[in-house]
């Protein structure tokens, strides 16, 4: 068990991200603290991906600030993300992980052992020498997860990591998320799979049109959602 991640909480203070006239995030305020996974749910276009990218420091807010552990400056090194559509480097699966280990400054002597562990963790032991870009969508998604974990992050962002996985692979990834969370790594995960949110969430953030419409502990949220938007989304109706 790792100590509480030093980098938390992640705090969004009135964060607005504009693209032309529209606000993709609209004065969003949110605190993500330590603990079980935070599941960010909401319909297509709600701003989930944008929220994760702002947290990672890939997009600068047009207004407002994001702070990590009360510090407004750059986000910490020990953060990692699995993108909704991960890009595979033009190398073998193993060398994609090796690249991440290198970038994270992990000593070369440890690379081979770590690559073996990570490939096994995501069920790709047999794929190490295959060109990463030749793997199937689901295999690439799992390789991206292994590559993100190579950084040994304290906070791990996952953008719909199971969206293109079959049931067995989905279960495998959810098991990894649980194991990772149990080791004290903070997981922040976007999804629109309510079953998955129910299975993994410590708390739930509901996004709608770039705003947080609800933010509660998971058991409370699924028992009695407070807002009309959340009820509509839970009922499976189209949220417009």
């Amino acid at each position, binding site marked *: 068990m790792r100590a509480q991640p030093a980098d938390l909480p992640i705090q969004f203070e009135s964060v607005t991200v504009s693209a032309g006239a529209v606000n993709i995030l609209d004065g969003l305020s949110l605190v993500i603290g330590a603990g079980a996974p935070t599941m960010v749910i909401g319909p297509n276009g709600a701003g989930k991906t944008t929220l994760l990218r702002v947290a990672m420091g*890939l997009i600068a807010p047009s207004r407002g600030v994001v702070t990590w552990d009360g510090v407004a400056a750059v986000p910490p090194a020990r953060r990692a993300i699995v993108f909704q559509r991960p*890009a595979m*480097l033009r190398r073998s699966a193993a060398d994609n992980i090796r690249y991440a280990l290198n970038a*994270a400054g992990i000593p070369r002597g440890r690379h081979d052992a770590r690559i073996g562990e990570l490939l096994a963790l995501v069920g790709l032991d047999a794929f190490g020498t295959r*060109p990463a870009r030749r793997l199937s969508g689901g295999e690439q998604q799992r390789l991206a997860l292994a590559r993100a974990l190579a950084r040994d992050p304290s906070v791990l962002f996952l953008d719909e990591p199971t969206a293109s996985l079959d049931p067995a692979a989905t279960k495998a990834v959810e098991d990894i998320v649980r194991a990772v969370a149990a080791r004290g790594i903070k997981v922040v995960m976007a999804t629109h799979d309510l079953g998955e949110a129910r299975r993994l969430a410590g708390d739930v953030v509901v996004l709608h049109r770039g705003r947080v419409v609800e933010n509660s502990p998971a058991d409370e949220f699924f028992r009695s959602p407070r807002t009309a938007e959340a009820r509509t989304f839970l009922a499976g109706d189209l949220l417009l």
Partner: protein
Amino acid sequence: MPPETSALQMILTADPTLWAIVRLSLIVSLSAVVLAALIGIPLGAFVALTRFRGREGFIVLLNALMGLPPVVVGLAVYLLLSRAGPLGPLGLLFTPAAMVVAQTVLVTPIIAALSRQTIEDLWTEYRDELTAMDVGPFARVATLIWDGRFSLVVALLAGFGRAAAEVGAIIIVGGNIDGFTRTMTTAIALETSKGDLPLAIGLGVVLIGIVIIINALAWMLRRAGERMAG
């Protein structure tokens, strides 16, 4: 050289005149490609990865310069290197070095423009991942060049093809001096006008052979790149 010697005989018997010319051509064009690569790849990477005023215009210019007319380049380099020109004191005019300079000018925009495209496309694809991994600027460029290596080598081959086949620039700055600055293309131009067709045809065959080999190499590299990297 007896006039009845045929082009084929010259190639098969490794006629010394013919091979001296082929050798010089290869040395000049390869040197030009190496120099153009040393300038063009970093320039392409710089334009691909930075934002500056006039960038769009510069890219259009770079693409346009891929089609520079060799005689114009020859003229410009001639003016530069001629006795009265700014680089006149170097005494390079009518030497192989002058031909290398002219072909470098000709090939650099090709390599720079193709590198820019390759590196920028890769960067679009990799940007989020590399930024999320906190990859620094130098490692970033190294990654993009390494992962784009097959396309970059194809760009070098395109540059070499252009250099090996041109006549306009090197005939002006080299002077087509027998045994000193005579290359395949300048010799073909001269021998044809003199009516010495066997040497012209022999050189023509060798030149086409080289161009075919270059294209075969480019094609094989692309295939290898696709196989290895997906």
